């Protein structure tokens, strides 16, 4: 008790003493108690145990089913489940609410979160605190999964979230961040919820190695969030793909966007995005690979666009974007514009539809490639004409448009089309 008293005082000291604090936390961890929850122990419920515990204690939950909800964790605790104990909320409401810093939740199986039309009940909610870790948690039959509200410096690792959402209006998001900063989200599996991962007003977050699939709306959804990174994720078969909206300076590397099919489905939907970097991603078999609207100064490099309906659809108000060293392979349409205006650069890409030649054998085609076809313009105007795709007549009119552009942006050319697929 004496040591604990001391550490409390130390934390109040000046920030320069951070090293001392570290030592303090260390000594404290050694002297903290461990409480065990099981059906036959002194502590039979989790809420009780949390109340009984002192700050920086460890609570170990033994395997059993605990029918509890509204568990409030208001002190720094480490909660560890052994062999995945089940916490069944019986659809009553929120299950765990964390309101203290330095909380770790590890190895729980949480089911039956309450559904509400007025409140966003979550399996685990983190509220106005920092330095938390949520890992190895399995969530099923949920409304919202992990909900971070004004939280900072936390980690969300190795969780599995499997929802059963059917409609958008009565389902919640897998992992939701609201006004949060510096959060790391890694190795999570999110399935069949509304939005797999949703960031709103959340900056400096890293989203890595997650798999988000079969969600009703978006696999990943950004709103008003800046300076975030997402890398090596897989987004598959989501209702509308991935949406990045109203955000700045987002880096997107090595993600895979696959099989997002439907009339409003995109591998990635960009709306009002500025200064982003999109590199080494793979877009495969999406109705629209990337849909761009009102996005400026974005660098697209070394991405693969394979077998998409539209690899890139540019809707308007997109300026100074550059597309370099991408592979465009067997897309029905490579690039589609809805106007004649173009301020974007296409250079050094590989186009599988390129029919030019390379006489000096430097790997660069001698004839510029024109990625926008007249037919894509016609389909934009009259969508039903898509049925004439790959018709000989269409090839003929595409050819005549290629020779003298009338409807498509005439300056949109790739002057250095690559002869060989780009590898990296």
């Amino acid at each position: 008790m004496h040591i604990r008293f001391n550490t409390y005082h130390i934390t109040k000291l000046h920030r320069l003493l951070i090293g001392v604090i570290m030592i303090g936390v260390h000594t404290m961890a050694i002297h903290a108690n461990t409480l065990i929850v099981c059906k036959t122990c002194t502590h039979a419920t989790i809420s009780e145990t949390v109340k009984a515990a002192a700050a920086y204690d460890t609570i170990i939950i033994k395997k059993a089913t605990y029918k509890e909800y509204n568990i409030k964790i208001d002190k720094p605790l480490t909660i560890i489940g052994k062999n995945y104990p089940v916490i069944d909320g019986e659809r009553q409401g929120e299950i765990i609410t964390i309101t203290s810093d330095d909380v770790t939740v590890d190895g729980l199986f949480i089911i039956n979160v309450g559904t509400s039309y007025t409140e966003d009940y979550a399996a685990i909610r983190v509220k106005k605190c920092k330095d938390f870790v949520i890992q190895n948690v399995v969530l099923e039959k949920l409304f919202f999964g992990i909900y971070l509200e004004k939280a900072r410096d936390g980690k969300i690792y190795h969780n599995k979230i499997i929802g059963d959402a059917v409609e958008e209006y009565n389902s919640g998001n897998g992992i939701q961040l609201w006004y949060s900063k510096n959060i790391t989200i890694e190795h999570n599996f999110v399935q069949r919820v509304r939005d797999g991962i949703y960031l709103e007003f959340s900056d400096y977050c890293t989203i890595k190695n997650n798999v988000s699939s079969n969600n009703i709306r978006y696999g990943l959804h950004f709103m008003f969030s800046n300076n975030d990174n997402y890398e090596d994720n897989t987004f598959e078969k989501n209702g509308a793909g991935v949406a990045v909206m109203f955000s700045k300076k987002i880096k997107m590397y090595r993600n895979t966007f696959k099989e997002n099919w439907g009339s409003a489905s995109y591998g990635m939907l960009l709306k009002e995005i500025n200064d982003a970097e999109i590199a080494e991603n793979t877009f495969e078999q999406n109705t629209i690979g990337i849909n761009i609207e009102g996005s400026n100064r974005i660098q697209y490099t070394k991405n693969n666009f394979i077998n998409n309906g539209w690899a890139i659809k540019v809707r308007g108000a997109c300026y100074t974007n550059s597309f370099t060293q991408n592979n465009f392979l067997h897309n029905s349409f490579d690039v589609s514009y809805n106007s004649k205006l173009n301020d974007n650069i296409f250079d050094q890409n590989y186009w599988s539809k390129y029919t030019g030649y390379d006489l000096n054998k430097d790997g660069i085609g001698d004839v510029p490639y024109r990625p926008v076809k007249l037919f894509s313009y016609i389909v934009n105007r009259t969508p039903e004409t898509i049925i004439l795709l790959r018709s000989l007549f269409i090839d003929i009119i595409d050819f005549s448009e290629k020779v003298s552009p009338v409807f498509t942006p005439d300056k949109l050319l790739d002057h250095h089309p690559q002869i060989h697929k780009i590898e990296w």
Partner: protein
Amino acid sequence: MLKILKYSFYDLMRSRWSYVYFLFYLLLGTVLLFLNNDLSKAIITLMNVIIVLVPLIGTIFGVMYYYNSKEFTELLLAQPLKRNSIFLGQYLGVSLSLTMSLVLGIGIPFILYGIFKSDSIWNFSLLLITGAFLTFIFTALAFNISLSNENKIKGFGYAVLLWLFLAIIYDGIFLMSLVLFEDYPLDKLSLFGTMLNPIDLSRTLILLKLDISALLGYTGAVFKKFFGTSFGLIISLLMLFIWILIPTLRIMYKSKKKDF
């Protein structure tokens, strides 16, 4: 009928043109595969070729065969044989030998390349099936034309015109009418328009396999049902059957009435 079919078939098997046709496809398939090293790209290119070339060869060959073997046909007519069996035998003989040239010509290089081990096998078999359908349809149309025209030049002219119309002009008119009536709901019209042209029909069949992600981008419910389920595949195949059936029935009807 089977005897005449057999005779026509063997006659054509010995003819130079079957070999040329076979060798052409063999060369095309080999060149595409070994220069491209990409199965799916080769299949797409072949599809473009097959959809245009197979109907052309079918019509020209059908017309040619009919006019060339006219004297022999007249000799056969003097025998106690049913007219149906003479003409149907000839028709099937021509179509079968053309189909064989196509299937073997394209099949051999792809099998050597290892199509059975790749996942493009379904796309490839669909390609061959549509090729066979188109051969049967256009040979039947060619026989119709030549039965109705005694004049060789006129017959050839009509045959080429028919091909030109169905392969190119039809799509032009189709596109114009879709753009012209763009204010109206068009999904039924566009599907209906496709059904009326066997070349468009086979193109749609292949689109279902290759460009499904683009086709699902359109919102129409009828489209969605057609392309999103196996409904489209079944209807398209059924329509191709009807496209063989009707000209064949007309061959039978016409040949019965014709005065030689």
